């Protein structure tokens, strides 16, 4: 007799370590971070039992109760109840609890155990409980709950085999052996019981030395907190430039060397030009920004893992409230600094539909990492690398301002939207502030590697393809003698047409040319410019010039600033539009998003250009 595959589901309060356990048990790479509400979708993986038998393990969004409020909690409820389409009802429930906060986590635990289904408790984060001076008694808890309790430390892979064995065992036991469903118990009763059970399970408690309470004294201090946050962000953007320089220079030299090598070894042909102008100059110009991307994510991931991100939300909440945004929007907006797509997905944890819509609409204005190469190449070319203060470089300052411009723009748009199309009461900010943790080196390294790989894969696929296509469009038809190749080409003709519209905001033909393929991915703006200048180069010497030098000879400072302003706002990413369509169930809102963002980009670039001209910068 063959049995159908056993299904086990990870259930628990947010931030209990469900995804960390899921990754440890299945070898998956689900996102884990130290704030509640990271996982918003169910995710299945394969866990091998000690017997070698596979089990389908399902990671679920964290939840405080079974009566779900937001779309992500709804997923959890449906899966547990077996109402989720395409997902078999779990045979075993793995209840994940935070040992250092048992009193709270045991409330939902009771609700789940009362369902009377085979349940195993993972008493996770035992290490944190120890750090807080708690000694726990799993056996006492087991007796109180009536289900097996396994101490685990997901991030150090402790207790995993025991947990897998317990899952196997829970499945075998007859139904009657599980605690019978209890008649309706009220929340206050559960809370009282949770308190009793937690007290009984704590063997000893040494003087509470809660590190995080002391850290919060400074980081959440009414006067010190906001300046610290500001200073920290400042350091991030300084670091993106200064730390990256040696690596970026090395990579640039490598790309340049490759180009020279190809030129010397290959016979002169159109194919060689494709390789040097399209692949090496084009794609290479994007790849050189890998160090900047890695440094940016180093800070983002560290802030997420330590628990500071939730404090940043706390400090920023006042501003969000001022424009009618809910505090729950903060995390999705923060995720958008990596990429608007996970950011828009993360809005699923927002209860109110109008709140959620507003957040989706402004998410593309948060400066995503794909903009970094565009900003960095222009800044490096036009902003002198001077110091404006001790330890403060002008380039980093400008980058910081661009990020701030995106945030302020988003806030202003939210202000308008909340008073017009998405009118309604903003919901409040209710969020558990997680305990501080040191990031584990392994998780951080893995996260960075993942981000670096995503970036390189994009360069190798999407950016590569678009750049090659552009190169072809730039080379055909061939120019008559004496005619400019770009002007003669298909791409050039299109750009010249578009330039009519973009001229008033200071864009020249090449800038117009760069923003069309950049719809595929923002970084393509950089590779497009590099390819265009490589194709358009009149002699070898000109072709060998670095992109920055090319830009300096062809653009004025007001033009460069206008280009930056354009990229702060322009919805230059088709995937984001596609995700917005899926999450809002239609084309109406993505169309609105496109229209208002392009309008904003146009106006912002125009104002920047003419202000710079008036200020005599041109």
């Amino acid at each position, binding site marked *: 007799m063959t049995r159908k595959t056993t299904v086990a589901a990870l259930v628990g309060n947010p931030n209990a370590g469900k995804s960390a356990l899921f990754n440890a048990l299945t070898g998956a790479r689900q996102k884990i971070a130290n704030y509640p509400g990271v996982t918003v979708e169910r995710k299945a993986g394969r866990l091998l039992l000690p017997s070698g038998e596979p089990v389908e393990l399902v990671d679920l969004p964290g939840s405080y109760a079974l009566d779900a409020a937001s779309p992500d909690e709804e997923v959890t409820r449906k899966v547990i109840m077996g109402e989720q389409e395409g997902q078999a009802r779990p045979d075993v429930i793995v209840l994940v609890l935070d040992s250092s*906060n048992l009193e709270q986590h045991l409330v939902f635990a009771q609700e789940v155990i009362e369902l009377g289904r085979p349940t195993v408790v993972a008493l996770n984060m035992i290490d944190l409980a120890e750090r807080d001076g708690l000694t726990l008694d799993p056996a006492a808890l087991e007796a109180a709950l009536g289900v097996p309790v396994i101490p685990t430390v997901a991030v150090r892979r402790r207790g995993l085999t025991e947990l897998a064995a317990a899952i196997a065992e829970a499945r075998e036991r007859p139904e009657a052996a599980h605690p019978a469903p209890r008649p309706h118990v009220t*929340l206050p009763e559960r*809370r009282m019981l949770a308190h009793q059970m937690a007290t009984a399970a704590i063997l000893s408690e040494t003087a509470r030395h809660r590190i995080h309470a002391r850290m*919060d004294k400074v980081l*959440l201090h*009414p006067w010190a907190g906001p300046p610290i946050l500001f200073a920290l962000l400042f350091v991030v953007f300084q670091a993106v430039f200064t730390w990256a320089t040696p690596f970026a220079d090395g990579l640039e030299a490598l790309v340049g060397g490759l180009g020279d090598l190809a030129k010397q070894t290959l016979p002169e042909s159109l194919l060689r030009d494709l390789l040097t102008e399209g692949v090496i100059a084009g794609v290479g110009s994007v790849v050189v920004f890998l160090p900047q991307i890695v440094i940016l994510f180093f800070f983002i991931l560290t802030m997420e893992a330590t628990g500071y991100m939730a404090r940043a939300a706390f400090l920023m909440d*006042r501003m969000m409230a001022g424009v009618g945004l809910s505090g729950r929007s903060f995390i999705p907006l923060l995720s958008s600094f990596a990429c608007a797509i996970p950011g828009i997905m993360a809005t699923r944890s927002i209860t109110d539909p109008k709140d959620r819509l507003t957040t989706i609409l402004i998410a593309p204005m948060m400066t995503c990492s794909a903009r970094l190469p565009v900003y960095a190449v222009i800044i490096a070319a036009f902003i002198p690398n001077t110091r404006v203060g001790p330890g403060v470089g002008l380039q980093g300052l400008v980058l910081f301002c661009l990020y701030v411009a995106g945030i302020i723009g988003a806030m202003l748009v939210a202000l308008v939207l909340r008073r017009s199309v998405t009118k309604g009461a903003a919901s409040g*900010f*209710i*969020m558990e502030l997680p305990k501080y943790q040191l990031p584990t080196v392994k998780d951080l390294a893995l996260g960075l590697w993942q981000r670096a790989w995503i970036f390189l894969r994009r360069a190798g696929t999407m950016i590569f393809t678009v750049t090659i296509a552009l190169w072809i469009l730039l080379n055909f038809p061939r120019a008559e003698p004496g005619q400019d190749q770009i002007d003669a080409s298909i791409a050039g003709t299109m750009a010249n047409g578009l330039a009519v519209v973009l001229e008033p905001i200071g864009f020249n033909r090449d800038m117009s040319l760069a923003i069309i393929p950049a719809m595929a991915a923002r970084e393509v703006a950089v590779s497009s410019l590099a390819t265009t200048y490589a194709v358009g180069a009149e002699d070898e010497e000109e072709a060998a010039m670095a992109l920055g030098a090319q830009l300096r000879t062809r653009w004025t400072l007001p033009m460069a600033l206008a280009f930056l302003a354009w990229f702060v706002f322009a919805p230059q990413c088709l995937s984001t539009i596609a995700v917005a369509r899926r999450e809002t169930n239609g084309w109406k809102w993505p169309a609105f998003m496109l229209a208002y963002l392009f309008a904003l980009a146009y106006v912002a670039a125009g104002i920047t250009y003419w202000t710079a001209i008036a200020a005599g910068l041109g």
Partner: protein
Amino acid sequence: MTLDQLPIGTPARIAQVDWPALVPEEARRLRALGLDEGARVTLAYRGVFIGRDPLAVEIGRMTVAIRRVHARAMQVEPLAEKTSA
């Protein structure tokens, strides 16, 4: 006295909550986090700008951030001063 008026660091007990004054979903979330009648809380931090929003409340081993509107709906009774710090 309501929770938002509680001096920082003073332990108190939530005596009564005006649930109808809150959005039902938020009321549910507050309850789920244990901010309910009878709970022992301490106000830990509050924002500095206009409205002195949001607030961070310590409850059990947890710190929870809430907005002032939520705190205003919660009547609290300060507990006897701790003798030593």
